[in-house]
């Protein structure tokens, strides 16, 4: 079970500048619950939101169906339908937002990008991975594909105790700056280590 009071706060290092991805406890819980509901299959969805002066804020989590063609492969594969992608792009644009990234689950598997993930990833998006073990949400991580596709930069996740009402407040970025670990994460190349 996840702690619903916990706020997930992903910090993006982009071109050397610390960029915060604000994410409320409710939004993190939605992803965890979606992962648990879909277990043992992979689930997936969108993260829509805004970026202002280097701070990214998730405004909406949009669960969608896993459209991977072969039903018996959905335990280890996911795909978002192009119709869903075009719809969410339009909805985001109409709301003055953008697609910040996507989430998917890894049933009984670590929350780390696989070779399959890396092969299919697109640059510029946050890829959130929710591990689900024995029907229970476990660790969650966020990753950005490197421009040369050689691996990922991990986004730090830090508890900040924010609620959704606070996510747009001026204190949000300040809270992040104060509590964030700015250590560089080791470069993760998306390879399985067993």
């Amino acid at each position, binding site marked *: 079970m996840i702690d619903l009071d916990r706020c997930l706060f992903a910090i993006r290092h982009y071109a050397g500048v610390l960029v915060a991805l604000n994410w409320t406890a409710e939004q993190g819980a939605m992803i965890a619950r979606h992962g648990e509901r879909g277990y043992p299959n992979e689930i997936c969805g969108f993260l829509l939101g805004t970026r202002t002066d280097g701070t990214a804020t998730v405004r909406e989590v949009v669960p969608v169906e896993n459209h991977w063609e072969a039903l018996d492969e959905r335990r280890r594969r996911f795909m978002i339908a192009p119709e869903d992608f075009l719809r969410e792009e339009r909805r985001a644009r109409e709301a003055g937002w953008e697609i910040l990234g996507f989430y998917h689950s890894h049933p009984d598997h670590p929350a780390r*990008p696989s070779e399959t993930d890396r092969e299919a990833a697109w640059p510029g998006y946050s890829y959130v991975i929710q591990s689900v073990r024995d029907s229970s949400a476990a660790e969650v991580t966020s990753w950005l594909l490197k421009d040369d596709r050689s691996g990922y930069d991990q986004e730090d996740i830090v508890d900040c105790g924010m609620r959704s009402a606070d996510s747009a407040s001026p204190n949000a970025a300040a809270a992040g700056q104060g509590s964030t670990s700015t250590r560089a994460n080791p470069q993760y190349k998306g390879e399985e280590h067993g």
Partner: protein
Amino acid sequence: MADRVKILVPTALRQFAGGREEVEAGGATVGDVLGQLTTAHADLKKHLYKDNGQLRNFVNIYLNDEDIRYLEKAATPVADGDVITIVPAIAGGAQAVEELTLSSEEVARYSRH
């Protein structure tokens, strides 16, 4: 042989196309036109093509309103005024320890050649 085919660049790739949403190019086929695009914008190439020169598996390419996998894939002929739309196929997943690449069946299913 067309010389006025419009390519709609998805948001994720605009940073590699000089920030452009649309690029015009020419060629006889979809493959030719996309080849001109990546010649003009070399940083796009690795996100659209595999090292062996084939289109990446998880890229949807539409000629006007049709997915080229249901036409003639990269060999689909183009005409002046046609619009090629690149739509990201968002996919992935955990892999079994014994798998290192897509199975040959998956490659056949998702390839554009």
